[in-house]
């Protein structure tokens, strides 16, 4: 199982939307996908029509009150959800009394590792908390979600530095990728910002940049992925393309290949892809970090 965390310390940059729709797109590509809502605001749960307070949630799993399997729920687009609730915020306080609190999610996901191909973790808008540390510890890939709007570049650099620091402290190694969201190409500002992001994160950025779309907002209001309400929209196209890129990113490896090895596999795959598409001149191989 590949575990992908969507991280940024800035709120409102599209982490939850990206998590829901990437998961749905992967599910439509015949992958078994688990969505883990690790944000106490529970927006991913709401976006998948789940009421967090009505049953066991990720908070109960992290506090060992229920097993992971007991907390799983079915969601639209044949997704499976580990819902969140406001009580998850209490885990931050409770974690002070636990041993290895940042390893809780990894242990929880190992329990269901054989049942899913992908687990997408929607992180809270706080990169230095124990919840994000849990996500990064469990991850094989971390996506830095960057909104192509005001303060984005500076915020992105800070967020990246911060989550690398967190990862270093936790001893976790994972593949780092950058995903641009909420792109409105009609504005020159957004175009300039995307060029700046490309020059800074070029190798790590996905080709697909998720465009700003009213359909995504409508989908969130309906509690369903955009593929259910507007399957031919530009937003649906974007997430299909992103899912194809994620699937082609690296071979789907076993859980035991997590961490550093998975990262190496991904880098090797990118080098091969770059060679194939003649991006690199002959004789010079630049391995993305």
């Amino acid at each position, binding site marked *: 199982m590949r575990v992908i965390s969507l991280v940024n310390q800035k709120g409102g940059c599209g982490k939850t939307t990206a998590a829901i729709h990437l998961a749905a797109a992967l599910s439509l590509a015949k992958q078994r996908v688990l969505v883990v809502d690790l944000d106490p605001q529970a927006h991913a749960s709401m976006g998948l029509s789940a009421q967090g307070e009505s049953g066991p949630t990720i908070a109960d799993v992290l506090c060992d009150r229920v097993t992971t399997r007991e907390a799983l729920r079915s969601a639209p687009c044949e997704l499976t959800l580990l819902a969140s609730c406001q009580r998850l915020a209490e885990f931050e306080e409770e974690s002070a009394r636990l041993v290895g609190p940042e390893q809780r999610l990894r242990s929880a996901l190992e329990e269901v590792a054989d049942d899913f191909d992908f687990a997408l973790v929607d992180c809270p808008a706080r990169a230095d908390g124990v919840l994000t540390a849990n996500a990064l510890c469990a991850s094989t890939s971390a996506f830095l979600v960057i909104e192509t709007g005001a303060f984005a570049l500076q915020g992105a650099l800070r967020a990246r530095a911060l989550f690398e620091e967190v990862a270093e402290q936790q001893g976790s190694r994972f593949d780092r990728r950058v995903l641009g969201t909420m*792109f409105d*190409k009609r504005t020159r500002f957004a175009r300039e910002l*995307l060029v700046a992001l490309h020059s800074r994160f070029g190798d790590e950025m996905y*080709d697909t940049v998720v*465009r700003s779309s009213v359909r995504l907002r409508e989908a969130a209001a309906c509690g369903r992925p955009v593929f259910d309400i507007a399957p031919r929209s530009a937003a649906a196209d974007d997430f299909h*393309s992103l899912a194809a890129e994620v699937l082609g990113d690296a071979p789907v490896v076993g859980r035991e290949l997590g961490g550093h090895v998975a990262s190496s596999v991904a880098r090797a795959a990118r080098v091969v892809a770059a060679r194939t598409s003649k991006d690199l*001149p002959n004789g010079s191989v630049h391995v993305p970090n």
Partner: protein
Amino acid sequence: MDALALLCNLYGDGPSTLKRLRAHGVLRIEDLGARQAGDLATLLALTPAITRRFLKEASALEQRVLDSADAVNPVEQAHAPKRAGREVVRGKQAMLAAAAQLWTELDRTSPVPQTQHATESAHVQEEPVVKDGTPLAAAELDRATFEALHGIGIRTLEDLAGMDSEVVAAASGLGLSQVLFAQGLARREARAQIECTQRAAPSDAPEELVVCILQPSAPTDSRFSPSERAPAQWLSEPSGSQCEHEPAADEGAGPFA
């Protein structure tokens, strides 16, 4: 993300455009340079005008990405092999020098007619003198539009303004909107030229440079349509010695002062 993907996100339809380009063998942004605009227009289902703009943006972005790569890793770029068939100009100063050289060459090979008052220019002597009407160059058309119009024999603004837009678009290869825009410019410029001529010195006076200062738009107070309750002085015409847009000194600046 490579530069081609960036281009598709910035000026295309994102992943759809990228997929189409890659499916037809365009794997890098450099490959676009070898493609004809007509082929690409068919491939991407775009109008020729939009395709030309896409190619123009591709060229600019390619250069920009190269410059950016220079700034990021000059050592690696210095050892990178040169691409065949095309000289790559790197760095701002070098690019400016190359652009200046290119423009000099272009001026030498295809002179552009200047405005009628620029008598010292050698280019005017080479061009056939336009006797009736205002030269096309008087309108602030971009170079591509100017050349396209000039290429189909349009020499004066009056000719351009009087021709059928669709005929001009079909003959020149320009988009209809571009032609309409150019015609709008031509009409405006022709009107301005006529006004300038009327205000100019008598014809027997020695020829001198006529400086046309366009009137600024009317200030807010003169656009104001006073109601019936407005004071009579606002409705009165200004005296003949003053500009029609300026209020008389004794009547104040108007209701919004």
